[in-house]
Structures are given as structure tokens and as C-alpha cells.
């Protein structure tokens, strides 16, 4: 450095801090600061992380598959729907019930014979309940005028895809209704999506399937 000018200042230099030794890589104060903050961070994380995990856990949890009998096979025909009410979410009483429109699969619509089709009444626009109008053969939503054809395909209004469906099976002569799934505009089954979310093509990536839903049939 400046040599002669710096010399007097060096004489008045502060004494070494306590614990100083020749060749130390960091001061004792700094080491303790880092250690204390690190420990505090670990202690904080030990509280925060489980709490956050507790709150977001339902995203990754899939409930038990639930099947409910809704009537003997003879109750359902090919050319119209029969309305059934069953429990989709347990533990909240009537609020957990939902409505499906059930019929036999139809040869005219190129569906696999001998199966049962259960169409959800949840409008895929925003989730209002749609109604099957016998005279028109259409599903109509009261909220924003969504219209679906006999199969549940959108033919008018704001909905973004066909109506959701439920898996069905026959056990002991009874039709049973199982987990919900969504369909693309080509009626290919995909994992259940919430109303308002498109299905098929690039939308499968923009609205990715959620771990809380069941695989499609």
C-alpha cells in the first residue's frame, strides 16, 4: 500500500478479536452467526414443512373407489334416460349426492352393446346441474344456456366438452355406478376434469390430469 502514510494508522489498528488465531478462515462471530441462522432455519422448516404438507396433501390423495347400485338392469332402456341419485362424496349428507342419467348402450350410436351409459348432470361450463329434456332429447343447462345432444356432446352454448360420465358395471342383476371420468369431443374417455377445462389434444397438457382422480375405463 502507500507505505509511509499507512504506517501510523497500522499502529492504531484494533486488537485482534477474542479467539483469533493465525490463519483462521472466518471469524468466530461469523461462524456462530451462520450456525445460529442455520439451526433457526432447520427448526423453522421442521414446523412449516409438515404444516404446508398437511394442507396440500389432498392434492395427491385419491379416495377409495366407490360403487353404488342404482337399480335392476331391466329399469334402463336404449332410447331414453332414467334419472338416478347416488352418493358421490361421503360424510356431508345430501350435499354429497349427485345425479346421473342412465340408459343402455345403443347400437344406433355405435356403442358397445350390453353396457350401461351414465351421464353426469354436471354442466361442464361451470358446474350447474343440467336437465334431460325428453321432448327435445337434449340436456339443457339453466345457468348459461349450454345444450348437449342425446349422447352428451355439446351442441350449443358455452360448455367446453361433452358431459362427464360415470363408470358402470352390472353386479347381481343391479346396475352399479362408479367413479367419474371425462370424455374428449371424440367421446374418448380421459381422467375426470373439472368443469370449464378442455379435454383432448394439447389441452391434456394445459389441464393436466389430477392425482386425486381415477384412471378412465
Amino acid at each position, binding site marked *: 500500500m502507500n507505505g509511509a502514510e499507512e504506517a501510523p494508522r497500522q499502529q492504531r489498528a484494533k486488537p485482534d478479536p477474542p479467539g483469533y488465531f493465525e490463519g483462521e478462515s472466518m471469524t468466530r462471530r461469523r461462524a456462530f452467526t451462520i450456525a445460529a441462522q442455520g439451526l433457526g432455519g432447520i427448526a423453522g422448516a421442521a414446523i412449516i414443512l409438515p404444516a404446508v404438507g398437511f*394442507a*396440500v396433501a*389432498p*392434492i395427491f*390423495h385419491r*379416495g377409495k373407489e366407490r360403487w353404488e347400485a342404482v337399480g335392476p338392469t331391466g329399469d334402463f332402456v336404449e332410447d331414453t334416460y332414467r334419472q338416478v341419485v347416488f352418493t*358421490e*362424496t361421503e*360424510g*356431508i*349428507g345430501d*350435499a*354429497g349426492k349427485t345425479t346421473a342419467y342412465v340408459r343402455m348402450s345403443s347400437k344406433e350410436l355405435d356403442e358397445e352393446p350390453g353396457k350401461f351409459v351414465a351421464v353426469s348432470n354436471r354442466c361442464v361450463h*361451470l*358446474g*350447474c346441474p343440467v336437465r334431460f329434456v325428453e321432448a327435445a332429447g337434449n340436456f339443457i343447462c339453466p345457468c348459461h344456456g349450454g345444450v348437449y345432444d342425446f349422447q352428451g356432446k355439446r351442441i350449443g352454448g358455452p360448455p367446453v366438452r361433452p358431459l362427464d360420465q360415470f363408470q358402470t358395471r352390472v353386479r347381481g342383476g343391479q346396475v352399479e355406478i362408479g367413479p367419474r371420468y371425462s370424455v374428449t369431443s371424440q367421446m374418448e374417455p380421459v381422467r*375426470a*376434469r*373439472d*368443469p*370449464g*377445462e378442455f379435454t383432448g389434444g394439447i389441452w391434456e*397438457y*394445459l*389441464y*393436466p390430469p*389430477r392425482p*386425486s*382422480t381415477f384412471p378412465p375405463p
Partner: protein
Amino acid sequence: MPKLPTLKIPDAVVPPPLRKPPKPGAAGEPKGDAPADLKTSPPPSKTDGDRLLDQAKDAPADVLAWVDQRTGASGFLTGMLYRKVPKGTNWFYTLGSATLFAFIVQATTGVFLAMFYTPSATQAYASISHINNDVPLGALVHGMHKWGSSVMVILIFLHMGRTFFFGAYKYPRELNWVIGVVLLILTMTMAFTGYLLPFDQRSFWASIVGININGTGPVVGPYLSDFLRAGPELGATTLSRFYAIHMLLVPGAIIALIGAHMYLVVKLGTTAPPWVKADKPKVAAPVAQLDAGVESNGASPNGASRS
């Protein structure tokens, strides 16, 4: 505009050494004849009762002085309560306080509603009917909370509009605008989560629609919906979740941010409305008018009054 009388702090709460002495001859003890001689006619000595009365009169001031000595609050409070506001300050400037008042109403009525409300999917509706139909004044408190939420949302938007149109968001107050926007979002969160709590048909379907709208956000939307519902469908835990968010999580954040918001308002001061012209810079009085550091009498050169 008539000049309003300035606020005077009553003598009862001012410690004796700080009290303003009465102007000579103006107030205070009535002037009688001057005593001829203190020796021949001394003033009446005080009885114990008089002394106790004097102490009692000073008690409020003593208590405040005791607190102030330990907190130093008076300096902060005087600075906050007697701070200068710019010329042109008008009724529009009360919208922020009005929003704060609406929040206080919500907090107070909310605490009392929580005493009767049951956040359970099977009992929530019955507990709200109980509040509205059986509890004395229950319908009033519930009504204040229900309509008050709309009032708060309206007021917060009016306050935001005032800030925007008066240009009060500009330097150095940008951070306060940002805090205000976060407060707006939190208020909307309160309105959204509170709507489900009565658990009737309207709130049930409104929440479903709200969660579904939220789910249309690409990529994260569906997961956010699952987080809000605590599952793929609206269920029993959804209500508890909304209840916890509504009365524990968000109110704490709102109170903390209101504190920060008001700290910045006091720290930075408020702005004048845009139509008020800035004062001409005051010209320093010529040195010749100063006599030994004492300012001469009369108005200052540019005619500005000193108030």
C-alpha cells in the same frame, strides 16, 4: 370555509409541568383584593381533603405519564395524530378510514358469529338458522357481517379509485399501492371463503362455480382447485378449510398489512388533490429585516400566512 376550532387536550390528562399557564388576567383563579400582608392574613392552609382532591385531579395525568415514561408513546402519537395534511384534503380522503372501519365491523361481528357457528357440513346450515331465528339480535349481527362484506368491497374499490385518479400511487408511495392491491386480493379471498359458510344452496353452488372458474387457469388451475376443495369434489373438509382460511389465515394477514399500509401513510404523508397548485416557493426574508435573530413584525414578503 369557517375555521374549525383546533383540538385542545384537556388539562386533566396533561401532566402539571407541561400545562399551559393561564394568560394573566384571562382565566384561572378569580382576582380578589390583593392581600395586604401575607403575615397578617395568610392564605388558608389546605386541609387533607383539599390535598386528596388535588391528587385525584392529577390522577389521570399521572397514569398517562407513568405509561408514557415506559413506552415513549406520546411522541409517536402526537406525531401521528397532529401530522400536517396538505391543502385541499377533502372527503374523498376518508375512504381509506371508511374501509378500515368496515374491516373492524367485520372482525367484531365475525368474532361473535363464531360463538354460535358450527363449521361442519351437516350442522353449518342449522347453526346459521339458529343464529338468524333463535339467538337474540342474531339476525342483526349476521346481517351486519353479510352486508358489511359488500360494503367493505365497495369501499375498498372506491378508495383504490381515489388513489388512482388523484395520482396518489406515484413516487414515493408505490409500495403502499402494492400493499393495497394485496389487501384487495385478501379482501376478495375473505368474501369468497365467507360465501360458502352458511352452506345453503346458494353458497354451495356459488362456491362450486367459483372453484371451477379458478380451475380454468392453465397447468396449476386444476391442482389449485383440488387444494381449495381438499379433494376432487366439494366435501366435508372443504367447509373446514374455507372456515380456517376465512377466520384464521387471511384476517391475520390483513391486520398485518393494514399496519404496514398505515405506517407508510403516516411516514410518507398524504398527497394534495391534483387540482391544487403547489405554493410558490417562499422567499427568505432579507437579512436586513432580521434584528439580532428576531424576525421583524408584519407579514412575510410574499404574503403567505404562517399558521
